């Protein structure tokens, strides 16, 4: 009998797999879009969970890789290179290289310095994105054409794109699960829970942390490539620091260092956002246009009262 948490994860994935036929049956294509978005952000959040949750590296700049992934695809498409076989590996590679550069500097520090430095580097990239006048500057630009996978899968078909994202999500959930439970992952977790002891048994955490940071960046770069194909639009806002904050919130809300946490967190946050934006409970002036006010309050309440996140609810007794 699998643990309750694993059952919840399988149930969630089953629900996600059932969304396209249901959305088609009820003629609500909007939900297809919403859940595809949720899955893309789940991928970004699960990459952050690897370093933040398991590795204890509080990166406040994870949106950078979302942006680099998106810009890699967008800029290649701008020059009429639409092959996804080229675009996506490039997006992943560029994010990995960037993560290696940022990580090499940031991981030398820890605690509050690490938070501020990752934030500052991402902000630097954000301003760099704004200064790229050729690619739309502040306003961003339309994605000329979606990534082309030479007839194998057509991203213009919403359902096909949806199942591609779902398949990637499942593979990456499995991959991160395997990484975390490998020898490599155990070193990462050990360095998080007790750095001095990790050193004492002869392991230097730095290269392990850097490797995890690069893997997380690469996965998030893929999420960026998916996101730009999803929105068909590209803006420096992908790299805005509030986006990094949202990703962190998804990880915490879902349950830090759990397999299903990022998925739960992304779903909860984006559904809450969607609900607040369309809510009729209060006058429009006070809710729909200003939903972030309530989001802020929810965030504070979650941090103060719900320490173990949503996944913690299903965990049964304390582990």
């Amino acid at each position: 009998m699998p643990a309750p948490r694993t059952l919840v994860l399988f149930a969630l994935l089953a629900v996600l797999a059932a969304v396209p036929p249901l959305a088609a049956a009820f003629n609500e294509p909007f939900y297809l879009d919403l859940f595809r978005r949720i899955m893309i952000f789940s991928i970004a959040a699960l990459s952050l969970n690897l370093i933040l949750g398991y590795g204890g590296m509080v990166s406040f700049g994870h949106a950078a890789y979302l942006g680099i992934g998106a810009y890699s695809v967008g800029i290649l498409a701008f020059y009429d290179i639409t092959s996804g076989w080229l675009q996506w590996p490039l997006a992943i590679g560029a994010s990995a290289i960037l993560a290696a550069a940022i990580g090499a500097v940031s991981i030398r520090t820890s605690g509050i310095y690490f938070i501020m430095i990752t934030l500052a580097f991402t902000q630097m990239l954000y301003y760099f994105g704004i200064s790229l006048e050729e690619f739309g500057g502040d306003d961003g630009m339309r994605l000329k054409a979606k990534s082309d996978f030479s007839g194998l899968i057509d991203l213009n078909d919403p359902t096909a794109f949806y199942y591609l994202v779902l398949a990637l999500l499942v593979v990456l959930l499995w991959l991160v699960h395997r990484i975390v439970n490998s020898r490599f992952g155990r070193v990462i977790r050990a360095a998080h829970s007790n750095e001095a002891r990790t050193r004492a048994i002869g392991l230097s955490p730095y290269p392990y942390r850097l490797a995890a940071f690069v893997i997380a960046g690469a996965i998030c770069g893929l999420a960026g490539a998916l996101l730009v194909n999803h929105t068909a639009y590209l803006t420096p806002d992908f790299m805005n620091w509030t986006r990094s904050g949202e990703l962190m919130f998804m990880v915490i809300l879902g349950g830090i260092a759990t397999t299903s946490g990022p998925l739960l967190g992304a779903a909860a946050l984006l559904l809450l956002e969607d609900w607040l934006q369309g809510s009729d409970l209060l006058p429009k002036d006070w809710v729909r246009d200003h939903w972030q006010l309530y989001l802020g309050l929810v965030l504070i309440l979650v941090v103060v009262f719900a320490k173990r996140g949503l996944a913690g609810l299903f965990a049964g007794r304390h582990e």
Partner: protein
Amino acid sequence: MNLVLVAEQTLNGLQLGVMLFLMAAGLTLVFGIMNLVNLAHGSLYMVGAYLATYIFQATGSWALSILGGLGGTFIVGILTEVIALRTLYERDHLDQVLATFGLILFFNELVAILWGRTAIYSTIPQYLSGHVELGAGLRYPLYRMVIIGVGLAVAALLWYVVTRTRLGMLIRAGASNRTMVAALGVNIRLLYTIVFGFGAALAGLAGLLSGPVYAVQPGMGELILIQVFVVIVIGGIGSIRGALAGALIVGMVDTLGRAFLKPMLATIISPAAADTLGPSLASMLIYLLMAIVLAFRPAGLFPARG
């Protein structure tokens, strides 16, 4: 490059530097003493700017708007500390970052509800609107001179309070050993609240002074907050001296970089390339500086002692 322009840009750099110092001092005190990462410090800056602008428009008195802005942010700061932040001192930095991130969303939207999402127009009183003659053909706006003066005066005052008064002694003692200070009969909770309030008032002061120079709009606090982070990381977290040095360095590098990097690049590479490269490089300069400082001094230039 003519000297008048260089002198003018240097003064601009100094003005940005003291502004950053006003923000950094409060943030670094709160971090050094309470071990609290307060992302919402930028929100207090915004609250100060909005309150002062609103009061000045309503009453026409600049002095009143300064008092209202300072007092208002002091009160908002204390309320925030008592209601939301007090429970977070014992938590790890991750929780603090998230909760104060929530506060930012809250304050930004609250301001947007009260005053709208577009920038509001902030003015300076007639008697501060002229220029001062600094000789050799350099005329500098009086208001910016006032900002520089106020900033330097506050820096001196802070130094005096922290090193020469009883309150400063308690602050320093609280930073090094909280339990011991409490055991000696000092109400440490009240001390924390007061320090937070003063830090908030300093952020409010920076906000209300900068209102007429920059745009008063929701989210204005985050633009400066991230620069303040760079200042604190460069200067060393928890150190007022480091905050002053870091603020002046960042203010100068950023301002001079924006003004002179493009023409300087143009002498090395083609003007067209300098045109595109210059501005983006200038906006990234302070972050590069931070990376370089960290590579050599991971704890900043003036790490706090103990």
